């Protein structure tokens, strides 16, 4: 399993929660520690399958400068 958004490897993925029905797991929520994507493995393919998802929505965590800051951290302003 890799991240549906940035293809980070399995070791970068954290299991957040498991939904159960009659004691049986019916879905699991994961979070990618690299690009912060969160998903449930029961979702439709357009949300959670890297190949099916529109390319526009991919995220490259190795190029953080591609993404603007909402409020730049104050610490980075200091030398």
């Amino acid at each position, binding site marked *: 399993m890799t991240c549906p958004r940035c293809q980070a490897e399995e070791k970068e993925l954290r299991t957040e929660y498991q*939904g159960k029905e009659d004691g049986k797991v019916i879905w699991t929520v994961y979070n990618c520690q690299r690009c912060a994507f969160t998903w449930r493995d*029961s979702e439709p393919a*357009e949300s959670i399958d890297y190949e099916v998802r529109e390319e526009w929505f991919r995220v490259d965590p190795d190029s953080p400068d591609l993404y603007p800051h909402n409020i730049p951290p104050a610490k980075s302003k200091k030398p």
Partner: protein
Amino acid sequence: MSKSISLSAEAKAVAKRIHCLRDYLELLSEHGQFIKWPEAVMPEPDIRKIAVASSRDSMTAPAIMFDNIRGYPGKKMVLGVHGSFTNIALLLGYPKGTTIKELFYELIGRWGSDKPLLEWVKPDQAPVNENRLESDINLYDLLPLYRVNDYDGGFYIAKANVVSRDPLEPDNFGKQNVGIYRIQVQGPDRFSLLSVPSHDMAHMIRTAEENDLPLKIAVMLGNHPAMAMFAATPVNYDESEYAYASQMMGSPIELTTSGNGLDIQAGAEMVIEAELINNERIFEGPFGEFPGSYSGVRHVPLFKVTAVSHRNDPIFENIYIGRGWTEHDTLIGLNTCAPIYSQLKESFPEVVAVNALYQHGLTGIISVKNRYAGFAKSVALRALSTPHGLMYLKNIIMVDDFVDPFDLNQVMWALSVRTRASDITVLPNMPLVLIDPAAEVPGKGHRLIIDATGFMPPDKVGSDSKLVTPPAGNEIDDLAKYVSQLQREAEIK
């Protein structure tokens, strides 16, 4: 001198009985405006599909409660609480069938009241404190979280009221801010919060980080319906949204103190206490926003949850937002119209009504009594300089005083027979709200004024035609309602 509002007997009765979300759901239920979804649903895509289908009916859509969400046994979630003008009408003490224009004038009548009605409840008597967690917090255990739109970056809490205080003046009640900010859950006990850089919350985040001070916040879920409506209305930095909402509602908002020292609604369904992790940022987004498009991925401030208080059997109130019409449009629509109208009316008493319901006022329709040729264009230019007009009001349509700007059939009549191509004004390279996808570059684009008012001297165009003047006024409004009533009765028979 303070001004308090005068309410009808019906409005007083509603104001008196509503203290929290549960009271409002009960009121909606009595009028057939609340349903429980009868089947089991998957968190995705079922909730999204039902929300979109329900949003089609902006006049009478009900609030929808889900209490059988697969994988979240026993948890409750409600959508569409402010999802129709009928729901808003009931909150303001009006019956089903009330027109948007009537609601607009009711809100205008309540506008400008400055008599806050706040009541304080001891923390140990506040319903929100029936349960409290201070360790091992997992938001997924507490809330049936789900993805709102299919390409959102995660699961969002999209209808929370967030309370915060200026980190430099933590004892100043007036500088306590309550706002609606989108919250992306970033882990069992962490979330990111996005604030427009010019908003109060962003100011507080910068202040905390620049001065190495803690910023404590309280995220309130399942709120008093007036708070949900009015916390999104911009008030000045030193004015309290609690005071404002209670004034508009004409009844007290009950407050108590949160575990981290903030003033919270005593009857909220849940309050998540959290603290800013100074200078830390995390990828946030995309999120399907009100223009009907996704805002992109950004680096956004991160918060750590420190405690959670909640009522017994809490209800997670959320909102569907995306390409309109959605609950978001109904929730903020009238509150967008009212301040533009009030500010415009001060300069031009000829202004009759303002309809800025569309995408938070990206398009506005203003009806005005024309004084001479071109007058309406001057009024439109004044509208652009109102606080909301500065960034929004991208397209303005000016119509005559006898055209109801909330009745789009009438507006289309004006566009069809009162507009010349030369009555269109384009103002290039003006400021524009950042997330408008039609911007030339984010934050800058063109404005459009369409003058669809009639021809006045010295304009000679149209002087050879004479308008039909159909009967109008209260008598015709009442007759229209009578027709509807007869029709309903015919259906019952």
